[in-house]
């Protein structure tokens, strides 16, 4: 079941979810809240040089994310006049808003694109829109605001599209989880049998 704007506000008021900072009034629609783009971007670079073969295999025992990060990513701070998102490129971005969904709230969420940007060919996730129950939750730290959403951004349109920090980049839709997730229970129990 998707939460309406009233239910989202009620959930925030009773501490069942955190959305920090408060989204502006114009960010709200009937069943979603627009989130804004943070100024930092990361551009995944193509391996340089002719004939250079780069294969990344996260499942390999020798995989090192640090090595991949150092070799192929480039941090970009969006300039005051914006960042031109070129066709065919792929970026990681983050929302300004931080989200927290405690398990006990029985809430999960989805991040989706905005149709205005989608019509230009801009996508904000690559088949991974789900924000699981428990996201950004740090038990025992009531002051913790939660975690920003990471966006996997692609431009499949033919146009250069300028991105600006603070622009409405995506929307978040909250859904009720049927039942309390197992992880959310404080009780612990044993299982039989060896692991794998």
């Amino acid at each position: 079941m998707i939460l309406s704007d009233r239910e989202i506000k009620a959930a925030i008021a009773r501490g069942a979810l955190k959305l920090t900072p408060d989204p502006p009034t114009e960010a709200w629609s009937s069943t979603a809240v627009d989130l804004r783009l943070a100024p930092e971007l990361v551009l995944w670079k193509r391996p340089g040089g002719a004939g250079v073969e780069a294969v990344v295999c996260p499942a390999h025992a020798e995989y090192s994310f640090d090595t991949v990060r150092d070799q192929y990513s480039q941090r970009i701070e969006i300039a005051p006049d914006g960042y031109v998102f070129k066709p065919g490129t792929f970026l990681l971005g983050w929302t300004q808003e931080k989200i927290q969904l405690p398990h006990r709230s029985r809430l999960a969420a989805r991040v989706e694109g905005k149709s205005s940007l989608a019509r230009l060919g801009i996508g904000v996730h690559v088949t991974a829109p789900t924000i699981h129950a428990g996201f950004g939750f740090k038990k025992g730290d009531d002051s913790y605001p939660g975690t920003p959403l990471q966006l996997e951004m692609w431009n499949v349109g033919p146009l250069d599209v300028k991105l600006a920090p603070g622009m409405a980049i995506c929307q978040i839709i909250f859904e009720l989880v049927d039942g309390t997730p197992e992880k959310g229970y404080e009780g612990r129990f044993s299982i039989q049998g060896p692991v794998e």
Partner: protein
Amino acid sequence: MARIRCQNVTEGLRASEAVASFVDFHGRTHFIRVERDFLGEQNGQMFLPVGIVHVDPKNKAVLVELPHEAETGANRLWVREGQLDEPIEALA
């Protein structure tokens, strides 16, 4: 909330992020990118908050759920009991 001892904490993709690495039950290293302030620190040791899903007392193994999918693809994985910073009691 249980916390798993990090093997190493390095830079993330942006200033507020960190990459925490830790090993699973089988010794394979996993990497997860989180906001740096999500990690806890105690006596210079960094910890990642995780949820406890199952305890296997026979093998002294614990199935933990990560705050989100790791760079290596795992959402839940088995770790050794000793990697966690609070005693895990398995109920009969």
